[in-house]
């Protein structure tokens, strides 16, 4: 299976898997919506877990598979959210033609979208400085993994993830502040 191929280091398997993860997340998202129309707290993590169960038969997959899956899925989620944020931000808001006023609501969606795009760019800069820390952030923030899960998935100690996460956050916040000023 694809997952097994990927965990044995086959880069082309990863490339094949990304669109699958992407499509699966979208599909789950649509279904989640129709099943739980009143849930306003659908989180990326829940999606990734569900996608994992779907794509990799969890009972057959090795622990390694699971960890690798989360790494790939976190990357996919980052890509999905950043793309979505960009499409949101590109829609012209208000302006001369506004027939009905929507101006007085500063939508949380737009705030988050702007933040995600800024974070994404700062994360690319961090990647150049310290790739491991950018992976930690990707898994923690975009993948929604806990400190422990991240440590497992990366094969490093919990203490290391803790330290990486803290420094990475400070670094990213500083970077984002510098870019916005």
């Amino acid at each position, binding site marked *: 299976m694809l997952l097994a191929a990927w965990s044995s280091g086959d880069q082309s398997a990863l490339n094949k898997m990304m669109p699958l993860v992407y499509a699966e997340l979208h599909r789950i*998202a*649509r279904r989640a*919506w129709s099943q739980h*129309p*009143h*849930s*306003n*707290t*659908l*989180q*990326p*993590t829940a999606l990734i877990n569900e996608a994992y169960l779907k794509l990799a038969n969890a009972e057959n997959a090795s622990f390694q598979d699971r960890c690798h899956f989360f790494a790939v899925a976190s990357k996919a989620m980052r890509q999905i*959210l950043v793309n*979505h*944020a960009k*499409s*949101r931000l*590109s*829609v*012209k*808001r*208000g*302006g*001369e*033609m*506004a*027939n*009905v*006023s*929507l*101006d*007085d*609501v*500063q*939508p*949380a*969606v*737009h705030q*988050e*979208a702007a*933040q*995600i795009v800024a*974070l994404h760019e700062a994360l690319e800069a961090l990647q150049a*400085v*310290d790739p491991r820390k950018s992976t930690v*952030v990707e898994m*923690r*923030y975009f993948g*929604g993994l806990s400190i422990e899960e991240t440590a497992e998935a990366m094969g490093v100690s919990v203490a290391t993830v803790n*330290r990486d996460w*803290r*420094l990475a*956050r*400070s*670094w*990213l*916040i*500083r970077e*984002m*502040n510098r870019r916005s000023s």
Partner: protein
Amino acid sequence: MNPPPAWEEVERLYHQALELPVCERKVLLAGVSPALREEVESLLEADSNAGLLAAPPTHLAADLLDGQPGGLAAGQRVANYQVESLISIGGMGEVYLARDAQGRPVALKILRRHLIVNAQAVDRFETEARAASALCHPNIVTVYESGKSPAGLFIAMEWIDGSTFRAIMAAGQVEIAQALDWGGQAAQALSAAHTAGILHRDMKPENIMLRKDGVVKILDFGLARYGGAVGPEANSMGASGTITGTLSGTLLYMPPEILRGETATSASDVFSLGAFLYELTAGQHPFAGETPLDVFEAIECRPVAPIGSLRTGVPQEVDRLILRMLDRHPSGRPSAQEVSEVLAVAQASA
């Protein structure tokens, strides 16, 4: 690919410093090169406001899950309307140009599904649909229909080919005769709403449009209330983001009694209209300020300069009328009906 040694040094000092009390960090960093110290200190500073990555982007995720990033596609149907293009987008929903079955243009306002879970958003949406459809006046936007569709809640309303007064005032000074005409139309609309027992409660240039043929239209009855007096609206403003979002923009038209948390009455609408009329005729806002606090203070206690002191050609009775509309005491303000009458007379003799 290992990080450069300097980065490892930064990392080591950063974690070492975090374990020390703030006062001892300086001692630790005193012994290193200025560049390294600056690097570590700026990271420690960022650490203290690290709330940024604390919460996942749930709104964005929910928006994504909604399945239609960027809104409805052209050609898509919502009830009996066919979507043409997205006009504007905001937290309360989206507005599209659409066509009805006869091919007439309509403005289709849609409250996206993931916002339906927000009771206040629904409340506001339904209020708008109800209030505007209860009113039939040439200067109030006409609501054709409202209801539910798979895309979300929708309101189909009159398409207004024109611009908001925010845009008009931004484009330059308005002629006095025109200001009197437009102000009079807005006052007539407000008077009709008040006669029907409906308060607008959000009168401001963003909510008043001028159609290309010169007809003024009042929009957005999303905060409207029935039956005159209602309680203070701290919750509805906070939840809709009015206060936190564009505080100063909305604040500029808020009467002092509302700022004090008192009950909104028809006189509150008159005050907001007065602030708009002042801006329209004088070319500057009566309560302009650098910060929200300045605006707050101006509304509460700064004397309003007569328009005649800023611009010549404004009839005295109009100047007096607008100053009365801005009276700090609701009881000192004219009714919307009186405003429209005075403006009509002034216009006729201008």
